[in-house]
């Protein structure tokens, strides 16, 4: 199907077609009503045009039947539209369970991206065709927004929290990436490209990019450097909770709340440790705000995610990676 619909950008993700179908419905519905009203107005204006200077209109000026008709029909149509739109939205915001996670950090005025295997890029991201891909995004300064028109998805990228988008590319090629939240002087140059490659080509590309460490290993080094392991270690006398198998688990907090240990929780616990203290521990951890960059935090989180339960841990990976 190579027919190109004018003014519709390339459909290059699994979601693109769903969004376009919704658009076609909206355009058809709107065209119908616009034409209906336009025809009504033109026909009435001509048919009932004033023929003498003192002519007046009739006294037919209300009808409950008509009022009910043009209240109820539009109501049903917008409710139908709402449901359809919400369904597409839920799909847009629910990444598949097998999505591979990449990292995006926005700053004035560039996009820094990192592959799970450690390769870093600026204003570009290479991804393999057909792979469900999830981006975990944050900002170092102001609010940005990550927008790929060909994939019909975007999300704001905020300082101080994580947001995500996902897509499964269905077409190889190069696609626009734009920042769509005004972020200062060079906002319109905070642009780039998403490159979709055949899977084997992607592997070759990965191999061609020099990579120092994967985020998890970099995180392990940081973990040792920052002496996190002096408290977060195994053993009953540890001052901080152990981190193995923590990611994704429910955590019991000292104030009685329970939270899921996701990226946002881990990030907050590094930067504002007092905000959510784990039950059974004292609020003694210092904040690492200002000492670690957003990319460092992402690396630390990736390291913590690599610590599976039962494995005795931290040390091994960190020592192994240390020079």
């Amino acid at each position, binding site marked *: 199907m190579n027919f190109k619909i004018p003014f519709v950008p390339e459909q290059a993700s699994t979601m693109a077609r769903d969004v376009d179908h919704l658009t076609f419905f909206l355009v058809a519905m709107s065209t119908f009503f616009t034409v209906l009203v336009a025809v009504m107005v033109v026909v*009435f204006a001509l048919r009932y045009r004033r023929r003498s200077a003192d002519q007046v*209109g009739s006294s037919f000026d209300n009808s409950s039947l008509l*009022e009910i008709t043009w209240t109820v029909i539009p109501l049903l149509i917008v409710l139908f539209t709402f449901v359809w*739109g919400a369904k597409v939205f839920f799909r847009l915001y629910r990444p598949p369970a097998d999505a591979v996670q990449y990292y995006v950090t926005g700053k004035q005025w560039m996009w820094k991206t990192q592959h799970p295997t450690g390769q870093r890029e600026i204003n570009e991201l290479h991804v393999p065709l057909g792979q469900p891909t999830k981006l975990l995004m944050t900002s170092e*300064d102001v*609010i940005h927004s990550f927008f790929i*028109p060909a994939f019909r998805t*975007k*999300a704001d990228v*905020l300082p101080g929290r994580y947001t995500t988008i996902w897509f499964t590319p269905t077409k190889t090629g190069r696609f626009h990436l734009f920042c769509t939240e005004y972020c200062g002087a060079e906002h319109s140059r905070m642009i780039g490209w998403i490159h979709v490659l055949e899977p084997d080509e992607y592997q070759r590309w990965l191999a061609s990019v020099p990579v120092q460490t994967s985020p998890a290993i970099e995180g392990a080094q940081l973990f040792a450097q920052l002496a996190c392991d002096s408290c977060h270690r195994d053993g009953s006398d540890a001052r901080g909770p152990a981190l193995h198998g923590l990611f994704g688990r429910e955590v019991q907090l000292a104030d009685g709340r329970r939270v899921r240990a996701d990226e946002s929780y881990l990030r907050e616990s590094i930067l504002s440790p007092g905000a959510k203290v784990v039950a059974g521990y004292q609020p003694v951890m210092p904040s690492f705000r200002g000492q670690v960059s957003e990319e460092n935090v992402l690396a630390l989180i990736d390291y913590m995610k690599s610590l599976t339960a039962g494995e005795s841990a931290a040390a091994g990976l960190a020592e192994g990676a240390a020079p």
Partner: protein
Amino acid sequence: MSAEATVPEVKPNYLTADHGLKSWLLTLDHKRIGLLYLLGVSFFFLLGGIFAMLIRLELLTPAGDMVQPDTYNRLFTMHGVMMIFFFLIPAIPGILGNFLIPIQIGAKDLAFPKLNLLSWYLFMAGGLATFGAIVTGGLDTGWTFYTPYSSTFSTTAVIPVGLGIFVNGFSGILTGLNFMVTIHRMRAPGMTWFRLPLFVWSHYATSLIQVLGTPVLAITLVLLVLERAFHIGVFDPTRGGDPVLFQHLFWFYSHPAVYIMILPSMAVISELIAAFSRKRIFGYHFVAFSSIAIAVLGFLVWGHHLFVSSQSVYAGTVFSLLTMLVAIPSAVKVFNWSFTLYQGAVSLHTPMLYALGFIGLFMIGGLTGVFLGTLGFDVHVHDTYFVVAHFHYVMVGGTIMGYLGGLHFWWPKITGRMYSEFWSRMSALLVFVGFNLTFFPQFLLGYMGMPRRYHAYPEEWQVLNVLSTAGASVLALGFLLPVAYFFWSLKFGAVAGRNPWGARGLEWETDSPPPTLNFDQAPVVDHEAYNYADDAATPGMKPLSAH
């Protein structure tokens, strides 16, 4: 036009009753204050328009080659600030609302004439402070002031402009309050609520939003100023604040603000369609209550500006549903207006051309609002030119068509003179064509992915941008033309007489221009609004004493 049968004795009217600059600057006459607003609003509109033309010229070519990015960012920010806070919001209530509400309800003035004058001074003070900030360096945050860019990163005049808008807000609050009290307390004997012209109903709804919504904007701006000056940490994430909280507060006012702009325009449109169809507005009660419904629902939909801003999916879903509901009262209005023409006596004088143009632009603006309220669609076009096109159709198309239509309709009442029918029809045509040529291509650009607030763009989008800039030039011509023939009419225009359109309503039963106290004898009302069908004999020719 049907000339009045009255003897042309030289009777003082509100314009000739007093002379000198002081008599204008200290006037308590609602009609003169309306004209003061006309002066201020026109000045700010001119400024905003110049910024708009510079933006369109820059976007004529894909490369950002005419002005520096910093300059471009100041241009679109000041365009937005000037147009929204100092043109779109005050234009119709300030000029036409002030002039007409007391006359239409049969009162001598607003309830609080001094407060009314104060409103104008606050409006001018806010506007000039903002203008001063432009001259001394400008503002580059966008009219939306999103944090933390505005609170921490921008190096421009956030505080002066913030305070300018803050001061101007009180003008809106006081005007709204004044209108509400006036409508409640000052109606002429016999002028019951359901005999009010729909112009008054719609302004009542507007006042409700002004009084309830503007304080929230004031609070938000104060927080922003405090954050910027003293780093109190409400919005700054590095101090534990939440930048998205700002967006919630900002849109809690600024979404209803769209209805502050469009409801007065709808107020005008109802009058125009009734007058030029010589027929009572179809479904009067439905049109009246749909204004109130829009005002109330308008407060519950702000979250649709935050669909992609990390707001929870569930909140987004609720806001989407509520947004859909606003479409209903809007649709009810459009259908009732259209059906008013049915069995009417329709004439296509200039004001009616503007009214029909309004219906066209508002249909497109309103329906694309349904597009944007649809979650799955919004994600793709959020913060693209699709949104720019949509809100220009609603706010500018909607408000300016009503504003110009109203100005043409009541110009003979305000000045006592007629303007050139040929040239005014030309201007209506130019505005309608120019508007669509400017903004329709932007829907397409937005769907193709062009982000808003971009100083440069990929080459494949040039053709549509050239069309848009060409449209802006036509539109500018359409706006300049009325300036010429309105001035011309003051000296050379035919004398209008009391009721040049043969319309119903108390304002057409007094002199043009009206006397300072509006009526020679206090009116008593014994019939519904738009009673064209009551007696078929020469409408509007009835002398006042018949009541």
